[in-house]
């Protein structure tokens, strides 16, 4: 599991790559702590290379979302796969996040 954080003045982009399962969730949560701490801006969770997510991963997403809501920021989930989209749908997460698709060339 790789987490890459890219910060600009207004936007923090988090690239997630691999499988976000229970085993790595604590690690990922720790990696995202700085993002949660400064949640008052636009946070983009780039899921283009995210293969899998479990409930522990979903909880991290929710934590980020709550922090942003509290700090007046905004969370955008970008380019999730069909499979993960189904999980989002199942769990009502689709309603909690602003979903974004990069147009395919």
């Amino acid at each position, binding site marked *: 599991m790789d987490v890459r954080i890219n910060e600009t003045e207004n936007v923090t982009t988090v690239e997630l790559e691999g499988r976000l*399962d*229970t085993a790595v969730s604590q690690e990922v949560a720790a990696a995202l702590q700085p993002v949660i701490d400064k949640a008052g801006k636009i946070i983009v969770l780039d899921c283009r290379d995210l293969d899998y997510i479990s409930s522990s991963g979903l909880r991290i997403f929710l934590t980020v*979302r709550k922090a942003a809501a509290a700090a007046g920021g905004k969370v955008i989930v970008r380019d999730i796969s069909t499979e993960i989209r189904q999980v989002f749908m199942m769990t009502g997460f689709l309603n909690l996040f602003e979903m974004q698709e990069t147009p395919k060339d």
Partner: protein
Amino acid sequence: MMAKLDKGKRQAARQGLLIVVVALLTVQVTSLLQFAYSKYTVTQEANRRAEGQLEATELHILGVMDQVETAVRNAVWSVQQQLQRPDSLAAITRRMVENNPVVCGSSVALTGRNIAPYSHEENGRVVTSTLATEEYDYQHQEWFLKPLELGKGYWSEPYYDEGGGNMLMTTYSVPVLNKKGHPAAVLTADVSLDWLTELVGRVQVYPDAFSMVVSQSGQIMVCPVETLVMKKNIHELASSMEEAEQFHQLNSSLLSGQPGNATYRYEGKVHRIFFDSVPRTGWSMSISIPQDEIYADMKRMGWVVLLLQLLGLGLLGLVLYVTVRNQRKLNQVSLSKSRIEGELQVASSIQMSMVPKIFPPYPERSEVDMFAAMDPAKEVGGDFYDFFTRNERLFFCIGDVSGKGVPASLLMAVTRSLFRTVSAHERSPQRIVTTINESMAEMNENNMFVTLFCGVLDLRSGHLRYCNAGHNPPVLVTPKGNRTLPMVANLPVGVMQEMVFSEQEEDLVPGTGIFLYTDGLTEAENHAKELFGEDRMMEILRADISSRQLIGDMTAAVHGFAAGAEQSDDLTMLYIRFMNNQLAGETERHLILHNDIQQIPQLASFVEAVAEIAHLDVTLTMSLNLALEEAVSNVIMYAYPPGSDGLVDVEAVVRNDELEFIVSDNGVAFDPTAAPEADVSLDVDERPIGGLGIFLVKNIMDRVSYTRSDDGKNILSMTKILS
């Protein structure tokens, strides 16, 4: 080894020597026999020639004498008639000389009265004179007295007529009786012996042979040394010689009147002398031949034969030497050849033991029926096949290493090992082939390569994944007909690194067979150099016979086609029949984890394996993975007290139309199904962080149930209905 060779060398030398000695003895014994026989025949021949010559000469002499004796006898009557008229006697002598060419003088000498008319030839004319002179006194001459004494004809000793014509002469004289029967006169005829010298001189049986005629007293009449003629007799001659004794003995034999032969030494040479007497005259005639001359031809021939024999023996020795040397080399060559053959035999059996040879390989499995045959062109070959099962999958491959013989067999062993090693943890044929290629291309210094077909057949579903690296496309044998597997053109493995190989897939319906082969089958040649070809192969392939029978039929067909023509390439065949889809039954998979969150990723491959068996798509696989992870992570996090060790048992059961996960543990009793579920309709502010796990499990799975077993286990069963 060296001692052995030396021994062989000595033995060979001994044998060679023995052969030469035996040949030498044989040749020598035959030569000696031949020589003895030749000597005998040559001696016989010399005797025959000498005796023949003596006889012929004798006959000639006798002929002349007969002539003279007859003429004289005829004249006797005339003399008797004219005894009373002495004047007419001269005429008789004249006629005698005129009418008989051999007679060169004749006289009639009367007894009592001194009357002896004599006619003789002189310069071609006949001259008549008288012998009755004071000086001569014929009545006391031997030729006159002897016939009267004997009462019959008498040949005189030869004499040299110095007065008449320097001739060797002899005289034949007969007594003439008067009417009262008393001797009244002697009639003579002088005969020149010049013809005798000439006759005997002609006798040349051998170039250096010589003849002699001697009178009864031993006077030499004819002899090659003219100074001896009528000057010496042989007794004097013998006395003047060295080794006189042998010549005296010889003289007695010569004068004995008996025919015979003898040898004598003269001037260091051995001579052979043949002799005989001339009847009536008392003369003896002899022929002397140097012994060397008799055997000269034979000796010359003897030398030639000896020379030829030596040459022949030398040649024989040379031939033997060369043969022995070649034989030794041949022995060494065949020694090392047999060692190599022995090693190849071992290599061959090692190689054959590398490929599975026991058929059926999985007698307990009804879903697969397979058979294989491998027939290297030489002791070892570059073809190979292999297969094994792992997790309900049949991994198999067939390959053909470029080239033949030992180098190919080594690479074959390497490739086969790589296949086993790589496919132990890979289940994608594409990744197996790629990994093998990387390893082989890296160490391929001899630019050898391998065509390789690698397949993984799911024995539950009949799903076939395969990757073909330049090998002949296998044939799918179905009840509806045969077709070759679709092939992407990949290069053989070992050519270069970093090559990309494509994987393909195919679903097999039960009853379908996969026929894999190497080009040794389609390119088998008969004596007419025709190829067996794919058409003939396709005709044999039938879906309704067992794998053993199909391989047997194919082997018989290709052997029948080749009809004894030499096999030029390795021939390998592997036939796999997928029999029935075992989804109708039940398949179980187990996984045991520790209560460590880091073991969670193992679930991914476990679910993937189960999904393969159940033939599930990617989305469903991920959902099932998610549900199972939620259930398992729940146990890991809450069933056991923190810091204590515990196990989580995960079981998957694939049935015909459903998939059941059973998660069990020995931890504290806990029913996750009873836990509060997340309300997914709440807004972000109201949503609690927890409760999502069991919600996902219940949503993904169709049935979820919890039981606490009597032996203190939490058992969570989750079932997904498969459409």
